[in-house]
């Protein structure tokens, strides 16, 4: 299961403009292959979990997977069919702010062909364009 904060100091958080490229987390640290973000984006917990499941399910009993992002920013949403006003919506979940260049997932112990296919399946679940990088 993907990690997310159990409790936060403040319930809601202001959105900030994100720009630039990732200066940290942009190098493969653990595995041989990784999925690298190519655009700015906010990746929700369920999207990370969905991608992780797609990857581990494809790899079956082979390989080891590392999730390099943490969804730690709360986001809010207004209930359906609600008129405007009445203050800010309620927190509904967490997302991770990702910059281009950030490594999202890493895997080890699989062939290049399997890595490309597995990470490709994981990429389908994410809202931003990505590419596969390798340390070889």
């Amino acid at each position, binding site marked *: 299961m993907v990690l997310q904060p159990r409790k936060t100091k403040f319930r809601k958080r202001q959105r900030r403009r994100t720009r630039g*490229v990732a200066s940290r987390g942009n190098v493969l640290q*653990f595995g041989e292959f990784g999925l690298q973000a190519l655009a700015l984006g906010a990746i929700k917990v369920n999207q990370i979990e969905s991608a992780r499941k797609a990857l581990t399910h494809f790899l079956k*009993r*082979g390989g*080891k997977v590392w999730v390099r992002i943490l969804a730690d920013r709360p986001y809010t949403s207004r209930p359906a069919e609600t008129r405007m006003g009445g203050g800010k919506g309620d927190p509904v979940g967490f997302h991770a702010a990702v910059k*281009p260049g*950030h490594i999202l997932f890493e895997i080890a*112990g699989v062939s290049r062909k399997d890595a490309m296919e597995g990470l490709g399946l994981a990429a389908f679940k994410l809202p931003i364009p990505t590419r596969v990088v390798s340390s070889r």
Partner: protein
Amino acid sequence: MQKKVELQASERAEIGKGLAKVRSQGFIPAVVYGKGLKPLSLSVSGKEFHKVISGAAGSNVIITLKVSGGQNLPVLTHEIQRNPITDELLHIDFHQINMDELIRAKVHVILKGEPVGVKEDAGILVHSLRELEVKCLPGDIPDHFEVDIKGLRINDAVHVSDIKPPKGVEFLTPGQDVIVTVAPPAKEEEVAAVAAPEAVAGAPVPEGGVPGATVPGAAAAPAKGGEAPPSGAKGAPEKAPKEAKK
């Protein structure tokens, strides 16, 4: 052992936003610093620098920087900044060295062979340390360390202490650190999730347990207690707003 190479560098006056112009001309902004040396802003040819670091020793090559002012400086590359998307070289830090003084350097680890644990038992090879930090004279920096992993079985590991350093080289990475290990094959999560309900159904139901769908008596309990049929439950939310109005 180290091979010495030469690299032409010219002093640079452009800083900040002016560096875009330097890069567009095929040069890479660089800086050289060291003990007793005033930091010098330089620019080096991108093509030539690529040739230098593409050798077996990677960035651990002793470079003689020929600065346009007439200085010849023995240096090591200390940091190389790249654009994470395009892999374009952005900036280089050169560190001036004294050939008689001990220095710290990071040396790559290369694995040789395929472990038995991976071949026969479907284990997963986890290469956790790709570089080792060493302390030695600049001329003694090894190109790389080779680790033979053919004999590794599942849960076997190679530690830093298992490698014998060459003469004059001392490891700064702790000896107990794991370089490579063979992890047991991971179990697929879906298999475990399906197995769990079967195990519960087969086990005896505890006395104080919460009644579930598999317990026959539990399904009848709400019907006895409630006067309305199951369809009445749907009507309950409709009545609630009327009461609220009153």
